[in-house]
């Protein structure tokens, strides 16, 4: 008994300096910093933070998705808060046009890597400078309705071939229902599924932007979906509107591929379907080498307009890596998976059965899916243009202006290259990846 006590004490003592190194002391004057974020109930983490750092007060404002506001402040040259929440897909654009300032002055790169892992940190880093910290994971997961799977005798797909087989079977058995509806638009989804298959479509390295949408692997992904869509097995659908939520709520859509944060969206937007949903890691082309990619997820960045970057840097690091904060984010903000390596420390206590998912311990499943991500890639700095270009092409396909679905990919690439040129990116390398 005494022996364990000594060991625990020793371990604590040993670990203290290590943890202290993660969270440096604040050396400035008492201050108040501002933050824009749309994660719900962020105030619980802020309260914990202010206990540890009484000299830093955090004023949190929630404007919903605030890109339009941020773009305006950025163009005006003032008005950004100290800390800005930005999705990983939009972050490179903001980093590239000078919206953020580096924070590795207060914590060295190695510590950041230790806290968030190299691949996750990639979404907050450009040219060796760290601009923020990653919060939640967007690891892709396969959400499916157990009731429909039971009723129609479907099996949870392990490979994409299984997926296609089940989709065809379902269409025959229930022509009015949808097995899976890829989004009309929402470039994140399509890029995410290419990433999930283990390749990239673009990247940034050493001052150059690389664009290669039409590499064989990306083509394979688009051919796969194209075949199912062209033959009418599945239909592309408009996401995020009332019709779509109703289809999930009422059970007219059997499966959804989405980032793991979608577990919460389902809970709130499809409450009648409680107990019917289950979740697993997504299918793979080669099940012996399972892989995953991301779809969404956000980081917290220190803006160029911040008057107190030290306080802001200390805050974003504490917010997204300290177990006390991660616990709050999981409990109150309902984020299922945080990317910080320290998330593992609280995993045991939060991995509980979830009645919405029929008692499944979804945190375990999603954490496994998250750990299948071993790569990162920097998104092109023209995300909203890239996104709307795809929406238009997909609508053209729906309207019958494009015959073969897979033909969208090269057209999309051409649009993206043209926009990069329009915005003056001469450092673009086309047709290869680093």
């Amino acid at each position, binding site marked *: 008994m005494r022996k364990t006590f000594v060991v625990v004490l020793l371990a604590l003592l040993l670990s203290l300096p290590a943890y202290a190194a993660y969270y440096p002391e604040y050396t400035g004057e008492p201050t108040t910093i501002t933050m824009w974020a749309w994660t719900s109930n962020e105030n619980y983490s802020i309260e914990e933070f202010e206990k540890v750092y009484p000299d830093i007060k955090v004023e949190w404002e929630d404007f919903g998705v605030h890109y339009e506001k941020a*773009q*305006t402040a*950025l*163009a005006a040259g003032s008005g950004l808060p100290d800390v800005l929440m930005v999705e990983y897909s939009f972050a490179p654009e903001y980093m590239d046009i000078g919206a953020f300032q580096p924070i590795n002055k207060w914590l060295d790169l190695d510590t950041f890597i230790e806290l968030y892992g190299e691949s996750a940190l990639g979404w907050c880093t450009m040219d060796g400078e760290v601009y923020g910290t990653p919060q939640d994971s967007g690891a892709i997961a396969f959400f499916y309705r157990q009731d429909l799977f039971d009723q129609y005798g479907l099996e949870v797909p392990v490979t994409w071939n299984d997926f296609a087989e089940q989709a065809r079977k379902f269409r025959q058995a229930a022509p009015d229902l949808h097995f899976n509806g890829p989004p009309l638009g929402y470039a994140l989804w399509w890029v995410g599924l290419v990433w999930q298959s283990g390749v990239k479509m673009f990247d940034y390295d050493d001052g150059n932007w690389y664009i290669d949408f039409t590499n064989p692997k990306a083509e394979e992904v688009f051919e796969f979906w194209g075949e199912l869509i062209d033959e009418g097995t599945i239909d592309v659908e408009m996401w995020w*509107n*009332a019709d779509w939520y109703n289809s999930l709520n009422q059970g007219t859509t059997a499966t959804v591929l989405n980032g793991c944060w979608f577990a919460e969206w389902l809970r709130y937007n499809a409450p009648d379907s409680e107990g019917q949903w289950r979740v697993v890691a997504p299918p793979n082309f080669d099940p012996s080498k399972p892989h995953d990619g991301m779809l969404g997820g956000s980081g917290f960045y220190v803006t160029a307009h911040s008057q107190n970057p030290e306080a802001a840097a200390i805050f974003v690091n504490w917010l997204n890596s300290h177990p006390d904060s991660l616990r709050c984010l999981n409990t109150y903000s309902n984020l299922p998976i945080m990317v910080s390596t320290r998330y593992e420390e609280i995993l045991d206590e939060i991995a509980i059965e979830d009645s919405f998912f029929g008692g499944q311990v979804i945190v375990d499943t999603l954490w496994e899916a998250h750990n299948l991500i071993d790569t990162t890639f920097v998104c092109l700095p023209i995300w909203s243009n890239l996104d709307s270009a795809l929406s*238009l092409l997909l609508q053209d396909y729906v309207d019958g202006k494009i015959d073969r679905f897979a033909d969208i990919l090269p057209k999309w690439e051409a649009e993206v290259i043209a926009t990069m040129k329009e915005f003056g990116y001469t450092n673009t390398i086309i047709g290869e990846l680093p």
Partner: protein
Amino acid sequence: MSLINKKKIKSSLKAYLFLAPFLVAFGSMIVYPIGLGIKLSMYGQRGARMWYVGFENYTRIFNDPLFWESFKVPLFLLLVQVPVMLALGVMIAFMFETRKRSGAFYRLLYYLPYTIPGIVAGLVWSYIFSDSMSPLGPLFSLFGYTGKILTRGSVPSILLVIILWQFTGYTAFILYSSLIAIPREYAEAAQIDGAANWQIALRVKLPLLRDPLITLFIFNAIGAMQVFNEPRMLGDLVVLPPYYTPTMYIYSSAFSQGRFTYAAAMGIILAVLTCIISLYMLRTASKQILDRQH
């Protein structure tokens, strides 16, 4: 001499003092933003970085097919919605006139949609036409139609319905207030000459509504050119291109694609075009009135 000058200066100073509240507001809220918009439109921009490009944005607009394509919907509204609404408005106004005392309830009823913000109306109507919630679905299926009501192709007609619903009552109300301002003697004189009620309405009163009709036409033409709220809300349920209307194109260019200066240039072109259309209407309309008087 100097005395007169002093007096003059003093009196004009007084005048400006009285004008000051207006001038300050007008200068800071109208003139300055327009000036700033014109200045912005001469720059290229990426994030906080700006550089002078002269008229490059304008030449690009003239070569931008998307911008010109975005005028399709406003033109449709201008040619269909505006005349239909004015005709309906006149009819309703005449009906209002037959029940001046007891009709207050109906006037209120027709006016009500106008009090609902366009964005809210757009949202509610988008639900009315949606796939999963539309109360029209069962109605349509009675007639054997079970497909989608809200498609990209049907959006213009749906816009027509929403805008007519929103503004017809208001239009009728304006026309009604002009109608009751017409001296009763005119109708009485016509009646004595043996004119029937419909003849009085069409031959005597309708020509007297010309002025408010021209004003309403111009307001609605401007409204049609700048239509935004309704297609923006419908765009949640069906993919509409970001260049569906000129204002939508300007909005998405600035706020989602980060082309603020290009959007500023488009805004100025749109304002100029709207001005030209309004002026043209005013000129031709007043010319007709003058011709008639001669």
